[in-house]
């Protein structure tokens, strides 16, 4: 009857139990596997399409040592989809399926259960990104020759994870509040679309781009400008929480550039110097500040929303 483990179960063992419970679920989710396959398919297309096109027109395949670095940093949609399929039902699904009842009556606290679920989501998405980057590096090296700046890859993965976890925390908070997977997904998708479409509109047509610095998603669009040199319009960059990796790369390669925000302004008549004459410069900031701010905003969202999810989850009564 009186076994030592009955008196004091080890927290770390209990945490691992929750992580295992969740990991086994994550990797068996059909939607997750689907998104992983799509991500691999897109990476494959990205790698091979130029080759195929050049082959068709009998053009030589040029070595491109910057292939990997210029393709690092996943698109906002991919980040969002990984977050969505991994955690959309992590909390709500337990309520809908009634599995929350046996789970919460085990001798683990709700706090530990939530931590375990987040750790499992981290491991799952981390593993997926690791595979995708490894695939891109191997494929890129085989097709475009040896690659530069591969030492930045760990930072890229970290940046992508941070970006993804902003969405993860939004979805977890929604799941904890609604306890309904469909509602959670619909609201999350609406937020994602609003942040992407909305941010473009605000960024391009208004002078309020500054407020995008504090919202999740794509953020304000700006242009990279080397201090003391004229603006290069080709070097455009998005500065939201979805683009942390792109900004990390830019910062590591050109630490002292500025980001200049612009808006489109119609001055009447026909534009003289092409498209660029339509752009009005708003203000500039050092990229270091922009990057630091995006990382801080992402961290703030993650902490605040996970705290919210935890607070609600901790207090929920199980009526199911």
């Amino acid at each position: 009857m009186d076994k030592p483990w009955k008196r004091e179960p080890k927290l770390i063992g209990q945490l691992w139990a929750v992580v295992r419970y969740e990991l086994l679920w994550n990797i068996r989710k059909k939607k997750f596997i689907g998104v992983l396959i799509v991500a691999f398919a897109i990476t494959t297309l990205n790698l091979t399409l130029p080759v195929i096109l050049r082959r068709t027109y009998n053009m030589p395949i040029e070595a491109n040592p910057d292939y990997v670095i210029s393709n690092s940093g996943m698109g906002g949609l991919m980040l969002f989809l990984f977050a969505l399929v991994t955690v959309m039902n992590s909390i709500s699904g337990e309520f809908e399926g009634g599995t929350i009842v046996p789970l919460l009556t085990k001798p683990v606290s709700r706090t530990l259960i939530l931590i375990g679920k987040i750790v499992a989501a981290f491991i799952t998405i981390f593993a997926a990104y690791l595979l995708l980057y490894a695939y891109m590096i191997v494929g890129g090296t085989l097709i475009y020759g040896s690659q530069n700046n591969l030492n930045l890859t760990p930072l890229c993965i970290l940046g992508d994870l941070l970006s993804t976890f902003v969405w993860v925390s939004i979805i977890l908070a929604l799941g904890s509040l609604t306890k309904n997977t469909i509602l959670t997904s619909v609201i999350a998708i609406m937020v994602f679309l609003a942040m992407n479409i909305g941010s473009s509109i605000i960024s391009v047509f208004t002078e309020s781009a500054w407020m995008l610095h504090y919202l999740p998603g794509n953020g304000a669009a700006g242009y990279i400008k080397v201090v003391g040199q004229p603006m290069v319009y080709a070097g455009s960059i998005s500065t939201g929480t979805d683009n942390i990796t792109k900004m990390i790369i830019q910062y590591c390669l050109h630490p002292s550039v500025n980001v200049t925000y612009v808006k489109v302004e119609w001055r009447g008549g026909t534009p003289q110097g092409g498209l660029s004459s339509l752009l009005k410069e708003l203000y500039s900031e050092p990229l270091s500040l922009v990057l630091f701010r995006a990382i801080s905003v992402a961290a703030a969202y993650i902490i605040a929303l996970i705290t919210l999810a935890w607070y609600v989850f901790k207090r929920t009564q199980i009526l199911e």
Partner: protein
Amino acid sequence: MDLAIETIDLTKKYGSLVAVNRLNLRVIKGTIHGFLGPNGAGKTTTIKILVGLLKPDGGRAIVLGEEVHGDNPRARLKIGYMPELPKFPRHLKGWELLDIYGQMYGMPLQERRARIKRLMEVVGLKGRENDLIGEYSKGMQQRLGIAQALLSEPELVILDEPSLGLDPVGMVEVREMIREIAKDGVTIFLSSHLLSEVEQVCTHISIIHRGICLAEGPLKDIISKISGTAILEVEVAETPDKIVEAVKRLPFVSNIHVEGSKVMIETNADGDVRPQISRAIIETGGTIIYMNVKMRSLEEAFMRLIMKSG
């Protein structure tokens, strides 16, 4: 007396509906305690408070000496709980689920292995432990529910309608299993609709109706207290008429009727009245061939109690 479960004026409301109304339960350690009540009586609600799924609106609950309040994992360490119609993650295999739950109790690997193997045999899921729970039938999930409740060899096992959805063989098996674990001194608290099941396995019962506890105590006491005492079945050799007259005159006899050569005597006395009855019959010159005390069934007691409380 050591109590495994004690509630003091426990109250739970759903909006304006009072599901549990100042309930005072006392479950003695080492007993098999049946928790009876019609549909919607508040059994599941009470149990959910005991295991920390619901917060009471008033009163207290003490389980194995630990006050139940909020999310208290320590209090759950010594409890095995099987929910009403349990649902488990469909994507896990039977043994995976038990292994993970075992880990949550802090059971070491070797112990988990041995225990899971044993339990799968006991609940009749041997050979299916590698199947996904999503492929289990309702009854198999129920069996898995029993297995996970017993997994950590808990001091207190709370079963919410353990035989719901089981086939007749399964029901008998559950009954035997309950008796078996009770032998080790484990306290079992089970809610049920099946009065005959409760009657067969429980030593103590509580009867709850509309959230109020109507009766509680040892099974036999409850039955006799509610339905008066026993019915005496007496078979006599001849002339029952004279006998009926004589027996009727006894102060503790409340009713009497004759079925052929048998006289059924309802009494409302405490204690054994067989000597007085046999004396009365013999004094009239009758001959007693056979005498038997028939206990009323729990069902009868239950119906009476529920009817009386309206």
